[in-house]
């Protein structure tokens, strides 16, 4: 029987209450949302905390997907299933549904949250790759209601490490909305619901048939989910074509930093990075055109 080491349990009644608890308890405490990353780590004694602060009661405050004219805002406590079933995201960013269909399984998706996934900062984590692809901004709130907004590059400091301080909480993800957008996600896994061997997200923005901008985010091929500026530079201003996707795939394979492990060799993962980049770009362009 695997159980976590002993800890004290607190339940937050509002975001401000959660922050005041964090202020008091500092690094000895962790927020628990869905708990599907944190509890397994605590069972395995990979993580131990004196206090867990349960924020599930904040779903009313932090569980939403809202479309605005310039951006889509998603509350950090929005659960995977809500992301999968969101009509707003299906219309604006189909990459979310692509990714959610391959994240864990439906029962786990009933609990896990967007904010929890990003804050776990696992290098193989799918929604981090999605948010990197879409150039998301992360809203972090601290004591006194102070908010700061950081990019995904700034948010992920390293594996399992984020820019969120001990007395702060990730409250919202903002996705910029630009016209002519298409997006897609693809993942190779060993079995259904597993972590990625490699996964790739792509987003393109078309105007008059040409690519105005493009972004690719890879997961499981480096310490963080990686945005690849060289691909954006190579694709801007070009007409979509198979040779262009090929070129992007080559850049992706050259830019990533996979390691050989039980999921596959570094060489195989580079091959996947190239192939999944090609496939998702192709699909993203199809969607942008339709």
């Amino acid at each position, binding site marked *: *029987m*695997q*159980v*976590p*080491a*002993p*800890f*004290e*349990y607190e*339940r937050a009644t509002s975001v401000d209450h959660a922050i005041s608890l964090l202020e008091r308890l500092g690094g000895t405490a962790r927020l*628990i949302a869905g*708990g*599907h990353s944190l*509890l*397994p780590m605590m*069972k395995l004694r990979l993580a131990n905390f004196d206090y*867990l602060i*349960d924020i*599930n009661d904040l779903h009313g405050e932090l569980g939403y997907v809202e479309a605005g004219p310039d951006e889509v805002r998603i509350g950090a406590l929005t659960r995977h299933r809500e992301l999968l079933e969101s009509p707003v995201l299906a219309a604006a960013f189909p990459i979310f549904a692509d990714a959610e269909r391959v994240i*864990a*399984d*439906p*029962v*786990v998706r*009933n*609990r896990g949250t967007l904010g929890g996934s990003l804050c776990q900062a696992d290098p193989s984590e799918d929604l981090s790759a999605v948010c990197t692809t879409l150039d998301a901004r992360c809203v972090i709130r601290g004591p006194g209601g102070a908010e700061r907004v950081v990019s995904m590059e700034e948010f992920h400091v390293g594996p399992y490490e984020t820019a969120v301080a001990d007395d702060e909480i990730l409250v919202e993800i903002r996705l910029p909305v630009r016209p002519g957008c298409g997006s897609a996600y693809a993942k190779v896994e060993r079995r*259904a*619901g597993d972590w990625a061997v490699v996964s790739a997200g792509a987003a393109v923005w078309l105007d008059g048939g040409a690519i105005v901008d493009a972004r690719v985010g890879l997961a499981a091929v480096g310490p963080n989910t990686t945005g690849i500026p060289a691909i954006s530079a190579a694709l801007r201003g070009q007409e979509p074509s198979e040779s262009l996707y090929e070129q992007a795939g080559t850049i992706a394979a050259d830019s990533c930093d996979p390691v050989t492990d039980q999921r596959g060799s570094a060489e195989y993962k580079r091959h996947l990075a190239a192939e999944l980049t090609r496939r998702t770009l192709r699909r993203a362009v199809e969607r942008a055109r339709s």
Partner: protein
Amino acid sequence: MQVTMTVNDVEVTREIEARLLLVHFLRDVLGLTGTHWGCDTSNCGTCVVWLDGEPVKSCTVLAAMAGGHQVRTVEGLAKGAELDPIQQGFMQCHGLQCGFCTPGMMMTARALLDRNPDPSETEIREAISGQICRCTGYATIVRSVRWAAVAEAQAATQVTETTESSEAGEIDNAGQPAEAVA
């Protein structure tokens, strides 16, 4: 710490350790051993119960997190002596072999039918994709869920017909729906 939750419509209050997992609370504290405990790592899905009507893996939920919420286990599936159509389907279509995955499978299946009364085979397979049957029984499990869907649809039709003809009478949904056994 003290936790109070509603399990199968009964409010329970117990003194627990904060680290106690919901699956162990149900089994060891309340004695509701219908919920099985398998892999401990959120993979096998045999510990699935409902938390506020949604299936969750109770090995990855703290009992404390269920405080103030509604929990339903396989013991709460039947209405008194009357089995839920899902349970009848598992009997009729041989949906269980060793029975270990069965409680979790039935809880997920019930939640699926509540949301989608007419799921396709693919939709059923997706719904139970986080749950493992080591008896290679997925084909009969899928058939069992379809049986229940058809049985419920037929029962609903009979209710409508009975209401329209103002006839009182018991609804017989224990019969074999033709589609599901074909």
